[in-house]
């Protein structure tokens, strides 16, 4: 064997390195594993958040429901919320939430949906290019600003139209109307996405058969986008139930069991916010009761969001 200037050891080392280079075995990479674990940890944080919300709400709500004199049935049927008399009935707060949301939706859904149809079916791409970002900007206006608007503009306006003896200074109508304004961009933008996802072929088929643009929009495109539109409306309901600042500022600071929209009545969110504004002690029935309300609110909005996502998934699957 002819040695070409390499010692025995050098040759063995070279041989070893060559075998190593050729090895296709999977090598453990501890660095990668650690990074992967950290990324997973961040992902899991969102699960912890949900679990945290549920645990926190259930924990303090339990303290509330275990209090003598409080029962689930009374909680859902009593029409008086007066902690000083140990009366905890969610109905006055729930009706106020319901009425303000109803007013808001009856404004936001027709206007938002019509605006979406116009944007998607009639507006030129150029106009849409300007109007969509404007909608997004409007959706970004902080809700406390809408609350300010309700107090300084909508309430005086309602009082001057219907008379100050009919309309209370704090009233559900003002809060509901302004909340409707706030939700318009949400309904418009989600519905527009749904309408834009309807295939062009459907429109061309309808127009080809001699339908007018309006007939095409209302009888072909809108039905085809039903699930997306439904999703936008359910999202709007959930948003209206959870909205706090507008109702806190404009709807009134005291539970009131009434169906008259011109009267002051506090909503669930408004009550939670007002009770926790002051120097609340972190135990006691006042404190526990807002967690029971929070739990109800959380469950209702969660249910609505799940339904809305189900609708969205359905319309994605169709096209």
């Amino acid at each position, binding site marked *: 064997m002819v040695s070409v200037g390499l010692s025995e050891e050098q040759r063995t080392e070279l041989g070893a390195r060559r075998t190593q280079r050729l090895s296709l075995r999977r090598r453990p990479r501890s660095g990668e594993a650690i990074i992967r674990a950290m990324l997973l940890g961040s992902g899991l*944080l969102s699960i912890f958040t949900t679990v945290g919300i549920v645990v926190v709400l259930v924990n303090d709500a339990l303290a509330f429901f275990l209090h003598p004199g409080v029962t689930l049935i009374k909680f859902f049927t009593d029409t008086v919320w007066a902690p000083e008399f140990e009366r905890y009935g969610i109905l006055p707060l729930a009706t106020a939430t319901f009425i303000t949301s109803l007013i808001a939706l009856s404004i936001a859904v027709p206007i938002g949906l019509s605006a979406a149809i116009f944007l998607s079916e009639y507006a030129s791409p150029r106009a849409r290019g300007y109007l969509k970002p404007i909608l997004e900007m409007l959706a970004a206006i902080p809700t406390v600003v809408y609350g300010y608007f309700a107090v300084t503009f909508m309430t005086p306006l309602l009082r001057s139209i219907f008379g100050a003896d009919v309309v209370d200074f704090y009233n559900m109508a003002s809060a509901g109307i302004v909340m409707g304004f706030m939700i318009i961009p949400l309904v418009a933008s989600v519905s527009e996405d749904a309408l834009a996802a309807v295939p062009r072929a459907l429109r061309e088929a309808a127009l080809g058969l001699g339908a007018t643009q309006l007939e095409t929009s209302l009888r072909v495109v809108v039905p085809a986008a039903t699930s997306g539109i439904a999703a936008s409306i359910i999202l709007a309901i959930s948003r209206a139930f959870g909205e706090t600042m507008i109702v806190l500022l404009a709807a009134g600071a005291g539970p009131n069991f009434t169906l008259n929209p011109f009267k002051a009545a506090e909503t669930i969110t408004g009550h939670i916010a007002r009770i926790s504004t002051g120097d609340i002690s972190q135990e006691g029935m006042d404190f526990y009761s807002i967690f029971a309300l929070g739990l109800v609110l959380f469950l209702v909005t969660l249910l609505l969001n799940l339904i809305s996502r189900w609708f969205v998934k359905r319309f994605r699957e169709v096209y």
Partner: protein
Amino acid sequence: MLSSTKPETAEPGYLQGDSNVRRRQTVARVGRGVLFLSLVLGLVALITLFVDVFDKLGGYAVYSFRVDPLTITPSRPLEELSREELLALIEQHVPEEAKALIPEDYGAPLEELSDEDLVNILYNEVPSPETLTAKPLEALTKEELIDVLQRNLTDVRFQTLNAEQPFEQMSREALIELIETEVLQESVARQWTLFESIFNRDAIIAEIEREYPGSDYEFKWWLTWRFLTSEQTTRPETTGIRPALLGSLFVVTLSILIAVPLGVSAGIYLEEFAGKSRLGAIIQTNIYNLAGVPSIIYGMLGLAVFARALRDFTTGAAFGVPDPPPNGRTIITAAMTMALLILPLIIVNTQEAIRAVPQSLRDAALAVGATKWETVWHHVLPVAAPGILTGTILATARALGETAPLIVVGAAAFVTLDPSGIFSSYTVVPIQIYTWTALPEQIFTRVASAAVIVLLVTVLLINLSAIILRNRLRKQI
């Protein structure tokens, strides 16, 4: 878009038999108008909002003094006045009806009464007789003005003001102005709105001169440099927003610093590592649900966990910070709550940005032997970075405007001190707007309008930059 059916002037023969067409076309035109009107209506509603805020921002204001200026200026006691001076005062200040009754009440006509009786008449018939001989502020010398300040302010306040700017060096006008704000507590008695002031200027000035004779009035703006830079006080004329601005800056910065690393990591995990795993799907569904949870619920989570359970840590008591704020109401509590709230937003935006990165980039990196993480770190993230930045900017705007969760975790409404660290108590701009709007005194809504403008302009500018950035990205890809 596809052109709408235009009415033809001369209808083709095959349409004439169909009486339906004309009606349908009319309906189509009306329908189009209604749809367009809705869009306009929505925009009008929101324009009204802006107009309303501007309307409250300024306007003619008429001032009144909480303290009558004549009660603080030097005056001579009535007893020292001469008979002529007393008679002149009675002539000038005692109402005619009272004058007519003098002979009856005091037993003799005015001219025959003693000096003592004249003084008594003044005391009995004039509302504040001791101010009758007082000189108006404008007639005082500089020394007298400084004397007025010294007599009517606390020693501490007098020394502080003197240290800020020595009184001896101030002009008489500046001294009078100082007395008006410090001693007389000049306040806005009534203010008209901006549009009234512009379109009805003459009528307003006439009304001011009729209803508030002799009062100061001016066109007053609420959004001033002084408003932005001074601390809060209880008076609308002097209050400011500096602690709230700094509080917002602290809370938002800190929450972004907490949420962005976590959110981006979670987004990377879901897009690049989770694949189609069950765990990934669960996390994904969960994030969508979290995005729909009302913000006040996050506040309750923060209240129970950060403000209550972890109180010793969030107030700094565990680290030996003296004088912790009560109930864990600190900046770090607020920032952690806010971070949880914006986390879903950042995760979803990160995912979208990563999804937009072409698969070929990953394949190329993996093909030359890069590990998974090297591919993500060196090739995917740099391309996705602008998209992630857009999401972060949107999250910043959201955090800046959120109010409800901070009310629940206990932003204090009245904070005069600037935040000094993560364990100090705080207030933020939206909380200030809420507090000022909720106060019963109408004039505070004018103060709130200035804060609303500050918040709106900041939030909308931040959003605008995000939208511009995103549109530019779309063109690139």
